[in-house]
């Protein structure tokens, strides 16, 4: 495994890429809150996309509160939050944002010598849940803030 595929460099990439996805697609600046704990979301929308290859396997989970997911969906679609009445629209936007975040990571991993393929997105909705990694799988949570709202990138990764 090359030096570039150590966990801190993966997290550095993810931080830059998440900021880029939110700025480009949602015109919404987000900033990393280093060391911040996982926010206590009242209700949560989580997008997930898995990736797998010979040298690396894992998944990205993109968490945000349900109200902020609606704001983010409206921003991406160029609408007002109140114009979004369908939960499926919010799910699709969160899934697509997760797909973009994971796609960037996949490309970075492939260019670093760890070829992998990625899954299509899935959505989890709930009030209180945690995603536990499998044994030998590292977990990193990167907490970002946009005004008073939080976005969390939860990375589960196993570097072989």
């Amino acid at each position: 495994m090359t030096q570039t595929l150590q966990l801190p460099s993966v997290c550095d990439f993810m931080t830059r890429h998440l900021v880029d996805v939110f700025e480009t697609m949602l015109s919404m600046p987000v900033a990393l809150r280093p060391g911040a704990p996982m926010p206590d979301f009242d209700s949560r929308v989580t997008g997930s996309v898995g990736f797998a290859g010979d040298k690396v396997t894992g998944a990205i989970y993109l968490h945000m509160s349900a109200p902020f997911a609606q704001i983010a969906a409206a921003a991406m679609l160029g609408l007002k939050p109140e114009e979004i009445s369908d939960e499926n629209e919010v799910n699709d936007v969160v899934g697509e944002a997760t797909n973009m975040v994971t796609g960037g990571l996949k490309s970075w991993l492939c260019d670093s010598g760890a070829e992998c393929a990625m899954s299509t997105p899935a959505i989890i909705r709930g009030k209180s849940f945690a995603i536990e990694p499998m044994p030998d799988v590292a977990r990193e949570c990167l907490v970002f803030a946009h005004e008073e709202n939080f976005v969390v990138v939860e990375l589960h990764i196993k570097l072989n």
Partner: protein
Amino acid sequence: MALKILSVDDSRTIRLIVGKAFKPYECDMVEATNGEEGLVVAAREKPDLIILDVTMPVMDGVTMLTKLKADDALKGIPVIMLTAESGRENVLHIAKLGVRDYLVKPFKDDQLIEKAGRVIPLQKKPVPA
């Protein structure tokens, strides 16, 4: 006559964003949600341009592009790939299949319009008086 653009993406969000990007221009949008459906719509509508996602269920974009280029009636339709995956190997593989251009997600509307404008003669709709 308005140009016809086919957007093939499993995400309704992306199809909406692509449709909005082309709204100020003289073109009609048609849509498909995966490669299999995309081939059917392409054969029926004969679009002037296809904006094609890569990772989709049922049939992915690379498979659709391969089948499109193997079909004498459809192989002349220009394709711009719109992909979340920008890895060197991935881009080289797609380029070899005969794609006209590619755009990596995340993207801005004007980037898509600029690339499409290099392939088809996009014309702005007249501003209402």
